[in-house]
């Protein structure tokens, strides 16, 4: 089932990506001939002049080559006109006339003209400036006389073979080429390569800290629920669970790093490493910079793991096999550590599946605040700069990792818990 879901998720993702990438690309209108030429070669390179999918379906009055017109306003007016007249060939001929009368260098004028045409036929108002171009005028009036509304309701199906954007994009991804960024035209591979190291380091350290704090304290508190420490930890972790991590991160910087109160740690970044630093010195510098982010990243997951473990231990404590073990004469520490521990830890496997993506997305805010150049920071910056080709690759990777987490959790369950069966072995169990 996981594979099935994975397959579909990937498909939907990629489809979206294409749309967005196209849109962002189109919205950049070109004004000078150089810009136009540059964008045209880019278009050729990305294959944007190709249709977007293996087949295209469109109205008979419209065309699937509309995406080649870069300017959004012109495109909208043309598709409006096509819908009104129901005849794409005539509209296209009219657009060619406009292009010939007002060549590319004047694309601002082209836009203005198109805008006037639009207000003219929408409001049925007076003809404006465009009347000075006699040829355009006559063609436009003859265009308005055509009316073939039936064409609007006839869908046309066209097979595009493999020369389409989706095929190109998917092929590149499978080859390991994630394309280039729309903003600074560096390769996305390079961006991700630089970023992933810090995210993995941060997530991994915080994962280890989470488990090494949450597991012992959860067991201690469950076995001694009346003790003072248990009561304090219960309250503390309940509070931890509700505190938003961007608040904690801001407060940590405010009070421990800003220099106005305590300046124990550097504010943000990873520090500058001079050439003469030894490995030890570099390590200390990095640790100094990573202490606060790791605290901000871990406290929430500690509370989460603690809460889940407490619940599962409480459930296990009420089961009969403990009574049986006691009746057999086993000592209470043997029961606790040999029998209960294993069963109580099963939820940890589920958590492992959900913690992998949670650490990935949780590190957004923390990386953003402490400006650590990891995946989270990369995501935020590319979203804020509308760098869609990077965003959707990142989304794809994130989805892939969470799928991997789910799959890993399922497989771990299967190998550790003999009660779990795969669905093809037994239809009843999940």
């Amino acid at each position, binding site marked *: 089932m996981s594979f099935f879901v994975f397959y579909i998720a990937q498909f939907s993702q990629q489809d979206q990506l294409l749309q967005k990438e196209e849109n962002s690309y189109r919205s950049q209108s070109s004004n000078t001939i150089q810009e136009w030429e540059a964008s045209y070669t880019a278009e050729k390179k990305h294959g944007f002049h190709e249709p977007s999918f293996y087949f295209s379906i469109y109205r008979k009055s419209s065309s699937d080559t509309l995406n080649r017109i870069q300017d959004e306003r012109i495109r909208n007016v043309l598709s409006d006109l096509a819908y009104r007249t129901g005849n794409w060939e005539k509209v296209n001929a009219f657009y060619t006339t406009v292009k010939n009368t007002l060549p590319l260098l004047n694309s601002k004028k082209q836009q203005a003209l198109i805008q006037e045409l639009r207000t003219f036929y929408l409001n049925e108002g007076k003809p404006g400036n465009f009347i000075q171009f006699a040829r355009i005028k006559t063609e436009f009036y003859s265009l308005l006389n055509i009316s073939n509304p039936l064409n609007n309701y006839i869908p046309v199906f066209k097979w595009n073979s493999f020369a389409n954007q989706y095929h190109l994009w998917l092929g590149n991804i499978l080859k390991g080429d994630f394309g280039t960024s729309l903003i600074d035209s560096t390769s996305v591979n390079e961006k991700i390569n630089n970023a992933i190291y810090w995210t993995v380091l941060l997530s991994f350290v915080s994962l280890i800290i989470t488990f090494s704090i949450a597991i012992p304290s959860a067991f201690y508190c469950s076995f001694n629920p009346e003790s003072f420490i248990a009561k304090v930890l219960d309250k503390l972790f309940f509070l931890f669970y509700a505190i938003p991590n961007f608040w904690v991160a801001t407060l940590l910087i405010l009070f421990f790093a800003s220099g106005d109160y305590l300046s124990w740690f550097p504010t943000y970044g990873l520090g500058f490493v001079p050439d003469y630093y030894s490995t030890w010195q570099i390590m200390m510098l990095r640790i100094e910079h990573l202490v606060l982010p790791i605290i901000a990243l871990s406290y929430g997951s500690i509370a989460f793991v603690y809460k889940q473990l407490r619940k599962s231990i409480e459930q296990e404590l009420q089961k009969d096999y403990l009574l049986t073990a006691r009746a057999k004469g086993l000592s209470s520490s043997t029961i606790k550590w040999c029998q209960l521990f294993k069963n109580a830890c099963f939820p940890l496997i589920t958590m492992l599946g959900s913690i992998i993506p949670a650490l990935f*997305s949780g590190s957004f805010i923390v990386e953003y605040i402490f400006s650590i150049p990891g995946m989270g920071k990369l995501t935020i910056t590319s979203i804020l700069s509308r760098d869609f080709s990077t965003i959707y690759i990142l989304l794809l990777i994130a989805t892939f990792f969470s799928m991997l987490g789910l799959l890993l959790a399922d497989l771990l369950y299967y190998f550790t818990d003999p009660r779990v069966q795969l669905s093809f072995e037994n239809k009843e169990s999940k």
Partner: protein
Amino acid sequence: MKNWRKNWAIYYFLLWAAIALFAPILANDAKQDQLIQPLVPYSQSSIDYGNSNSVSPFGPQQIESIFYRHWLGTDKLGRDVLSQLIHGSRTAFIIGLGVVLIAGLIGIFLGGIAGYFGDNSVTLKKRQFSAAILLLPLYFVSITTVIPWNISSVGSFHKFALLIILSATYLFILFLIGKTVQQSKAKTHLPLDMIISRSIELIDAIPLLFLLICLSAITKPSFGGTIIIIAGVAWTSIAKYTRGEILKTKNENFIQSARALSFTDFQILTRHILPNVLGPVLVSLSFGMAAAILLEASLSFLGMGIASEEASWGKLIASARNDYQAWWLAIFPGLAIFITVVASNKLSELFQNKN
């Protein structure tokens, strides 16, 4: 008021709702001839030039009288923090309530269907089923190409009328096919539970915040958009919860007897099952409320989500990042978020204990 320790969450929510409702009255730019004088004589965006550059709540302030004091300080531009806090509570309230309403409706509806009908309850005639599957691509093609979605000169009424006509035609054809087949023909089950559960898994597979940020990057910043985006991701947990509860309730004796008394499915669902699962569902709703408030604050903190002129707790905390000596910019909105989230969790505990 006796056991306020137990019920403080309820009182807090009432207070919060009151503040959110009366925010424009509590804090606005006071004029001399105004009938109701506000508690805070500053609106969320009014700039007090005398007290700009982050004035501390305890430090000296340049004010005419105590009435004009900034009780919680000002931010870098000189806007009153308390006023922004009050208007931010309005934002949080609208977002929280809106998300809970929309996500609750979707979640309870889909979760209820998935839990109650399961995989085997809804049967279709085999021919009807295969016709539905075969016609589905045709239906999608027609609603995407025949309806002029991208033509701005066509009114939205026209578009939706076309959508309804096409959908009705689709269903009518299926109905006709069902009529032509005899009753005794082979039947198949419509795996509603599988379809809904798999789609929930699909949405849950993508990291939540990532999906939200990507979606809010595409849409324009607004209240409605933010609510819909958060609700579109948050309904899955409510649906899962509802489904689980209904699965538990479905096989109880009183449902069996209701079925024996030949009540319709609709009656059983709405009159017998839903009232019984409402308590646990309320638990998940109040968790959803807390999650929505947190998500909205995170989005505003990152500079996405609601429009830039609206106040939000997350935005206030974000402004604290730009001047670190102003602790009041971070502490107060953070406390507001924190208390609200704790209160939501407490509320869910109350609901849990009631059952």
